Structures are given as structure tokens and as C-alpha cells.
């Protein structure tokens, strides 16, 4: 089980808004696939999936704001 966490995006950026999930819960995903798109002030940022596996849980939804370090999803490896 791997937690997908919102990484540091830059100095002074503490949060971002989830704008698009590329996968749904239960779908297979490959390592480095775009998993989720996040939006800050004037930038969008695609977070790649850290491992190959199945998206077991999506914890924040499109439109939600998340803090750096917060868990966005859980991937079941394999």
C-alpha cells in the first residue's frame, strides 16, 4: 500500500486544488502515469503515480483543496 502525498510545490505554496483525477477507484495504474492534476494560483501541476498498482482509495475530490503533505490517494501495489 502506497500513499500518494501532495509534495512540496515551491516556496510559499502550502495548498493546491484538485482539478482532475485521471483514474477512478478500482482502476489499474502504471508507475509514472499522470494520476491527478492540481491547480495553484496560475499553474496546473500533474502528479505522477509513484508505483504501479490499483487505485484503492481516492481521499480528496475534484474541487477540494489539499495541503502539502496531505494524502490524496492510496495505491495497492501489484
Amino acid at each position, binding site marked *: 500500500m502506497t500513499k500518494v502525498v501532495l509534495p512540496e510545490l*515551491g516556496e510559499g505554496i502550502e495548498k493546491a486544488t484538485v482539478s482532475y483525477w485521471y483514474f477512478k477507484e478500482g482502476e489499474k495504474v502504471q508507475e*509514472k502515469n*499522470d494520476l491527478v492534476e492540481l*491547480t495553484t494560483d*496560475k*499553474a*496546473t*501541476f*500533474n502528479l505522477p503515480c509513484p508505483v504501479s498498482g490499483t487505485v484503492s482509495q481516492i481521499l480528496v475530490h475534484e474541487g477540494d483543496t489539499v495541503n502539502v503533505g496531505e494524502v490524496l490517494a492510496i495505491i495497492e501495489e501489484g
Partner: protein
Amino acid sequence: MSLKIFDLGLVSFIKAWDFQKDVFQAVKRADFPFGIVLCQHYPVVTMGRSGQKNNILAEEAVLRSRGIEFYEVERGGDVTYHGPGQLTVYPIFDLHYLKKDINLFLRNLEQVIIDLLGDFVIRGKKIRGLTGVWIEEAGKNQKIASIGIAIKNWITFHGLTLNVKKNDLENFSLIRPCGLDIKMTSLESLLGRDIDLDDIKQRLVGKFKEELNDQSRFAGVRRGD
């Protein structure tokens, strides 16, 4: 620092969008670390991920009748207009070679424009929370450059637009640029004379090269927020 320049001239938004994707793939393959696509667009309104459709004030039919296309795009930010007379710049930079900091990258794009305006003794400024480059005239802020970017695998795309010619500002009245009630200005409006867009292109590329060669700028120490 190896910087590749692609000057597309006057092109449709969609053609430049596709071209950006090709350059993005080349940067991803590590063919070169930094690419800049320069162009002018045929009239187009684009809406970024934070966009609200009610910031497009004109009916779609009015846009069409004026020959203005419309696209929703994957960049950050709200609604903007591009047309001939603006210089649109898409820096496709692998931030692994610089610093993985979205804020720093945005502030440095603003600085490139501010440095360019300095060549014309125009004082551009940054406003915290309102990304872009602004000119203060009689106590009021007008926008001269708009910025909206996207980042995948820490490689940037989309970018900035500088209003150069004065003839094209009229179409901004069809939208609320960036979702704000603001006035746009241009280099020609400020200087009151004709400006050669090719000269601006060369100067801008020069400023980007200065920024990239100065490791303390794009790659780390922030200045003048």
C-alpha cells in the same frame, strides 16, 4: 545552458498547442533541457483550469462573427485573449535542471518581462497574488503581460503573453481577463510609437538567456517578489 528557440510566426492556437506538445516530448527525452516557442496567435479566447465561463462577456456567436476561436486548456488561470500584436511565449523548461518550485518559476517569468520593459525605461511591477506584469499609471494598475502555465513531470508548458501592439487591445473587452475587472495596456500604448515585434522577440530571448545563465535567479535565490 542549452536553449532552443522555435519561432512559429503568426499561427493558430491549436497549431502552436500541438507544437508545444512536440517540444515537451523532446525536453522529456532530454534532447535539450530548455525550449522556447515564440508566436503570435490568430484571435483566440482561452480558458484555464480556474476559468469561469461567465468571464467571457460576449456570446459565442459574437466571438465567431469576429473570427475568434475558443478553447479550454490545461494551464492554470482564468480567461484570456490572444491575437496578432501580442507576443506569446511558451517556455518549455525542465525544472529538474533549475529548481522544482512553481512559485519561483512564475516570479522569474515576471522578472524576464520586467527586465525587457526596463530596456524601454518602463517600470513593470509584480503584485503579490496577481500573477502577471503590471504598469502603474496615475495610481491605477494596468496589465501588460499575462501568465498561465502547466507542469508535468516538472517540465513546464504554456506560458506568457506580452501586449506589444496597441491595435489589438479592443478584443479584451469581450472578456474579463483573468476573471478581473482590469485594464490592459501595451508597449506601444505606453511609448506612443510603433514597436517592431521581431526586436521584442530578440530582446526577450536575450533576457531568458541572462536568466538561465544566472544560476542564482531561475535556480534558486528569489528576488523582488
